């Protein structure tokens, strides 16, 4: 019998902002422990939050083992690795003061707007260790926010937002993102024309990828339920489109460098689509074994559950061009808020865009009216794919550019 522990600790400071004022300060320090036992091709898992006796946890896992959940795969072994990506951040007290200073600047600089939502200082430590030599530890810390911005004279709940994710707190960078957003917001502009034109999505926006992610599920591909079931090894997309599962330091915000089964990819990445060719769906151990697919390290689970297949940290490889070079003299729509869009089962894409800006690739020029976007999966990442920028021209983001059909809503 092999025993394994999966421990997740989260420490968080939350500064809650209402009407551009700090209204509450909250702290959290929660440890969740999962205990796994593997025996005769089965897995048992027990778990608890907070302080708990290890014998008690083991008993829960052994009881769960009796339910005979199949797991005829070797747990990861003989790998010891610890990363500590934490960087220096302010103390809790200093952080609250920093946020108060930020808000003071915003009140003076943008009196016609109000700002709300939380700013988090979030630290996590995840450990996966077993008695066959596995000991993986990931420590990380982020300052994160999606600041909601509302124009005082507006009847909308949300008019704009400004995001921030970084391992350090840089007030000037956050302010620059807010300034980029609001200076463009205050300048209403029109589309150069309706119809097909370049549209750019922020690097962390998964909306255009939702169908790709759904159909690259290894179990769906293996059972024949995926659109891509006959296309593994086939070139279906643009030469310049390469999609990775990445746990490289610069690509991580909330994931660990290892998955919930302890799989660590070489160079912390696995290529799923390379230059338009579908190389592999994403898999966990069970899916890889059952359908004879490569193991890509895509298992996730809550602390007290059996690891299962789920998408993890997809990244498009950037091109060698700036956004301006990619757009090649054309204007583009920047998608800032697009809630509610989706693909149909056969891959037709449609979404409203509640907040869009116009860009020349170097700066945000102005705010567009509400729009609707439409496209089709194979075209979006095929003939209509333009590329991902190597630079971050504004909003502290790289951008993914596609040609889509753009209309006023």
């Amino acid at each position, binding site marked *: 019998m092999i025993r394994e522990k999966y421990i997740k600790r989260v420490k968080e400071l939350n500064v809650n902002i209402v009407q551009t004022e700090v209204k509450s300060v909250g702290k959290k320090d*929660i440890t969740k422990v999962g205990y796994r036992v593997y025996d005769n091709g089965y897995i048992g898992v027990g778990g608890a939050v907070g302080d708990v006796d290890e014998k008690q946890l083991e008993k829960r896992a052994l009881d769960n083992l009796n339910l005979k959940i199949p797991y005829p795969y070797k747990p990861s072994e003989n790998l010891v690795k610890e990363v500590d990506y934490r960087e220096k951040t302010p103390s809790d007290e200093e952080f609250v003061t920093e946020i108060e200073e930020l808000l003071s600047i915003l009140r003076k600089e943008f009196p016609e707007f109000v700002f709300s939502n939380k700013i988090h200082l979030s630290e996590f430590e995840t450990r996966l260790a077993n008695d066959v030599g596995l000991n993986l530890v990931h420590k990380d810390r982020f300052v994160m926010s999606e600041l909601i911005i509302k124009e005082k004279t507006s009847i909308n*709940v949300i008019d704009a937002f400004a995001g921030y994710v970084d391992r350090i707190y840089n007030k000037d960078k956050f302010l620059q993102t807010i300034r980029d957003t609001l200076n463009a917001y205050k300048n209403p502009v029109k589309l150069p024309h309706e119809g097909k034109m370049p549209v750019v999505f922020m690097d962390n926006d998964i909306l255009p990828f939702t169908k790709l992610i759904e159909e690259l599920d290894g*179990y769906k591909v293996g059972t024949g*339920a995926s659109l891509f079931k006959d296309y593994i090894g086939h070139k279906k997309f643009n030469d310049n489109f390469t999609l990775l599962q990445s746990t490289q330091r610069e690509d991580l915000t909330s994931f660990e460098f290892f998955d919930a089964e302890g799989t660590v990819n070489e160079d912390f990445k696995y290529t799923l689509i390379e230059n338009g060719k579908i190389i592999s769906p994403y898999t966990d151990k069970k899916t890889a074994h059952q359908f004879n697919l490569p193991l890509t390290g895509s298992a996730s689970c809550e602390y007290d559950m059996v690891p*299962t297949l789920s998408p993890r940290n997809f990244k498009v490889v950037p091109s060698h061009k700036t956004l301006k070079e990619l757009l090649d003299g054309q204007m583009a729509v920047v998608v800032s808020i697009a809630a*509610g869009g989706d693909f*149909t089962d056969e891959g037709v894409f449609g979404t409203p865009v509640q907040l869009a800006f116009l860009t020349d690739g170097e700066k945000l020029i102005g705010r567009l009216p509400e729009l609707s976007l439409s496209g089709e999966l194979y075209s979006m990442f095929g003939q209509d794919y333009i590329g991902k920028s190597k630079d971050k021209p504004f909003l502290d983001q790289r951008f993914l550019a596609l040609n889509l059909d753009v209309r006023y809503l």
Partner: protein
Amino acid sequence: MFIFPKNLYTDVRIENVCLNQIAYRNGELLQSLNRNQKGAFIRIFDGHRWYYSSTTNMDRIQEEIDKLALMAKENEDILDNPIVKKFEVNKGEYLYFKDKDISNVKYEDKLQLLKSYFPIIENVEDIKMWRAIYIDRKIIKEFYSSKGAELKFDYQTCGIALRYGLNVDGKTFNGKYDKTSTSFDDLKGLEENIKEIIERDIEFVKHAKPIKPGKYTVVFSPTATGVFTHESFGHKSEADFMIGDETMMKEWAIGKKVGADNLSIVDTGDILGSGFVPFDDEGTKSRKTYLIKDGLLSGRLHSIITAESLNEDLTGNARAVNFEYEPIVRMTTTYIEPGEKTKEELISEIKEGILIVDVNHGSGMSTFTIAPSISYMIRDGKIAEPVNISVISGNVMETLYEIDGISKEMEIVTFTLGGCGKMDQFPLPVGMGGPYIRVNNVNVQ
């Protein structure tokens, strides 16, 4: 029970959660979870700022209270603070499910019930992958405050969720079936219903064609009505977006006409199901709140802070997704009240339109969206061919006037998996629903 610090307002919320989940994929056991966890959320208010923390160590609640008190500033007038005055002081035990506790149903019975539905799915050749999930959740909450609140109450739900991937002649489709209740017995005998849904989905995927984009008259099923109501108007009724905002207060003045004359929208925590909330997470008792009554804006959803700020009555809508989070204004069960027409009458009066039967998801800001999963054309007053639609959308405030027909049939729906998301709190169980409604000029893509 606790020693509350002087000259500060304090409350403590303790949650005892029992969660069971059994999941199968293509006939193989994937998960069998029995989670029992206890946690507490502690808040202190000094009249100026709130301080809070969460802990899983029940022995250290007093220590957490004392630590938070050190961050706050003593305020001798705290009991006269209008926010503190607004808190209800409810006491007593309200254990609705004591005699029908879902935790007392044997594991074997839950397992057998779930497995009894497998043959229905396994016998369908076009289903290439499937998952079957049984889930139940029992929560006992306690709430104590320095004003004297001492509450203990419970709620529970159980459900069956089926998810399946169809591949019919090369065309793929993701199908689903959900049944949620507060009683285990309600999950029995679903065979015919499941068969009907699967057969419907196979016919849909065989014949569905892409929609021609444009503006249509759309009939929403109770599920679609529920999602529309929740996303489009429910979130706008959450009063935390209005605090200190003169523009919003003018725009959302009570009594203002906001929709069709026969339109009434309600939120209440009293309906058994995912949105059953007898007391909210500030100890406020649930009540029925009309958000719109006969087309006029009639109310909004409140926490203590928003009710005090807007000088309105409490509604019992301060909810937290779990003990790790602070209560914020959330919906409970939100629905449109039924009307006079039948579903058939609504459809028969349409020359060309769309019937939305089921949905994948929705969203709502100034523009609402719904991503339908099952839709049909309506031609010459009759349901016609199935159509694939990626998203429908419209301006919320304009669309409320575009509702020109409401059916007498209505249904409250609750989703077995998932829930409502707001800020960093997801998924919160909610109920939603209503009648069939007919809406003109909806943008369809």
